[in-house]
């Protein structure tokens, strides 16, 4: 098996799985075999059509869009299903990323210690880091939820902006914690041995290592890991939302007072949804950290760590998990594609002062998109999917 085909395969199968989700209910049983066959076919097609560079670009795009999908799913629990207005996603995103960084790295020794300071470094495995990221992020949500969730909704919005700013200030100014404002480097890559024979991982079966032998680029492995996380989180959320618990969340969103009158403890349910969403966001942050390898506070600007995710969810359709994922891919495509297109605009000829402003045009496009969606299509592309809770069916 050639290197290129293996790469294409790793790209094609996850993609086919995502497409498989869109199949109508009648063909659902065929989803897995179709995805595997389709994935191989897609892989063969990509090897024939695309150059290696394009393939690598698509992979890196797929990883980041997948991570944004996880964040968008987390927001969907809070806003889409429960109606909690959280505009401090950056806080949970960055807490997750820095938590896993501190858990999985080992503190620098010798000469390097002078350049890197961190509170601790446990050298824990990847999965421990991701789970810890979710836990700490959920804890932050618990702390912010206590004073605000019982009050009117605006207070949560204002406080969530506040917590995001405070978290960013901490990671920017506290050197002892995570080397701020310098980047914290050396976050390990899970299963790196599959792409690089020099790194050893004794617990992986020999057959798997041989299968991945020809692979020369790590990011294809990570794409599979991100896809697995995305699928598991998606399935779990879908199950939860269809449970009686999820039904209460939607009832709170629609009519809070009558839900309370039916004997539901509204603020407890709100807190659970808020914390659960934050846990998912924290795990998204962890996936981001292991992809970037080095992170610092500037990666979590409210612009692309909060607003971008809101636009993704609003475009795809709030209260629709597939919409949240699709929105993430589309909006991230626009976000990444705009600078490429803007390069061809004769900005400098319009006015000399505009010469360097190309990169900012995508801010304008994202802002316009958000406003236009809210005015003309507040339910997004998909809108809410109507269903009955699982207790009544199946």
């Amino acid at each position, binding site marked *: 098996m050639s290197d290129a085909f293996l790469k294409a395969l790793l790209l094609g199968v996850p993609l086919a799985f995502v497409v498989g989700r869109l199949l109508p209910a009648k063909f659902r049983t065929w989803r897995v075999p179709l995805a595997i066959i389709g994935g191989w076919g897609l892989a063969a097609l990509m090897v024939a059509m695309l150059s290696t560079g394009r393939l690598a670009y698509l992979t890196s795009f797929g990883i980041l869009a997948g991570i944004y999908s996880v964040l968008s799913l987390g927001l969907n629990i809070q806003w889409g299903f429960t109606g909690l207005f959280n505009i401090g996603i950056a806080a949970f995103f960055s807490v997750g990323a820095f938590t896993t960084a501190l858990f999985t790295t080992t503190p620098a020794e010798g000469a390097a210690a002078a350049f890197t300071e961190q509170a601790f470094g446990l050298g824990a495995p990847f999965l421990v880091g991701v789970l810890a990221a979710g836990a700490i992020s959920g804890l932050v949500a618990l702390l912010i939820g*206590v*004073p605000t969730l019982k009050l*009117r*909704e605006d207070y949560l*919005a204002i406080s969530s902006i*506040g917590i995001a700013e405070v978290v960013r*200030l901490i990671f920017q100014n506290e050197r002892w914690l995570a080397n701020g404002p310098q980047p914290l480097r050396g976050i390990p890559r899970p299963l790196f041995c599959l792409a690089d024979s020099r790194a050893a991982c004794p617990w992986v079966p020999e057959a798997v290592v041989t299968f991945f032998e020809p692979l020369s680029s790590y990011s294809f492995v990570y794409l599979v890991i991100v896809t697995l996380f995305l699928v598991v989180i998606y399935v779990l959320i879908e199950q939860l939302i269809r449970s009686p618990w999820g039904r209460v969340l939607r009832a709170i969103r629609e009519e809070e007072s009558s839900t309370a009158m039916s004997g539901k403890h509204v603020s407890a349910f709100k807190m659970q949804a808020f914390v659960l969403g934050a846990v998912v966001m924290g795990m998204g942050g962890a996936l981001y950290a292991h992809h970037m390898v080095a992170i610092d506070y500037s990666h979590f600007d409210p612009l692309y760590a909060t607003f971008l995710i809101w636009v993704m969810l609003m475009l795809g359709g709030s209260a629709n998990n597939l919409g949240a994922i699709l929105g993430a891919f589309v909006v991230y495509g626009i976000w990444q594609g705009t600078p490429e297109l803007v390069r061809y605009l004769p900005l400098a000829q319009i006015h000399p002062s505009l010469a360097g402003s190309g990169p*900012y045009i995508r801010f304008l496009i994202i802002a316009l998109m958000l406003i236009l969606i809210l*005015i003309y299509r507040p339910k997004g592309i998909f809108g809410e999917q109507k269903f009955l809770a699982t207790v009544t069916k199946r």
Partner: protein
Amino acid sequence: MNESISKPLEPGLGRKLKAFFESRNGAAVILLMIFVVIALIARAQGITFARLLPLVVRGVMLSGIISLGAIGLSLIFGVLNFPNFAHGDLMTVGAYLALIIVGLLPHGQPLGPFSFGYELLIGLLVAMPAVGLVAYLIDRFVYRPLRASNSSAAILAMASLGAALLVRSLVYIFFGADFTFFYRGRSRPAIELFSGIRVRPDQLFILGLALVLIVLIYLLLEKTKIGKAMRATADNPSLARVTGINTEQVVLITWLVGGGLAGAGGVMYGLDAQLRPEMGWWLLLPLFASVILGSIGNPYGALAGALVIGIAWQVSTAFLPAAYGPGVAFVIMIVLLLFRPQGLFGKPGGS
């Protein structure tokens, strides 16, 4: 036996304390305690009173800038019933509009002890109504269609985030991301006010202008018919509509006044520090903290809130990195939300 029955009726000490902290006096005590804690931390770090006093004076000046934004934000919050997250960026627009005017006019000599010339005053006079107009245009093309379709407050708040981003991206496109000054390379010396307190003359100008504008707003709100209508609408929008107040007209005036004040605040913040595209976003947290502290929809409460926030921000720089200023504002807001979410001047039970 009798004792065990009567016990639950007698409020315990814990409940009494809780009730006290939830009263207005209790909230004031909490605020006082925050200041005492800040002063104690400063003492523990060996910071003398002589160093704290100038910080308090600077805090009062900063309050002038914050209050200009917070008064407008509070009125808008009360009248339109959603948090306008674009308010900080309206301040940015004011500063950059004044920068354009200053750039267009020929530079004269600095006026008296100040670092700026007449150009900045003209810039200020142009920026204030212009920002009011920008605020109204945003309302006309973004918020009004949403109001017409009966969108929830959260959707309006989200649209205001979009508007904030829209406005800021235009600033980025035309001015770049770097910071700048109204007058590049002009020195801004400090003078000694009295016994060891040094301030820049510009800061005295800022404080004076803020006071003048606040008095004008007071006159508008108390002495004119439209001002009374604004206060009534901010206090209770549906009751105001029932009593025959033209709420669309009130909305128009509220945006013009709120935007104008924000524009003035932005120019002053740019004069005090520097102009950056994120300057308004940076101020948003202190603005909201002031508004909530002084009860939503109460412009005088916002003024008091701004005073508290501004002084706490500046005094905290004695022992915290200056960058944490908005964080201090946020912590004060959270403490107050825990005990008295309706703010210092609100009616019990919230809005």
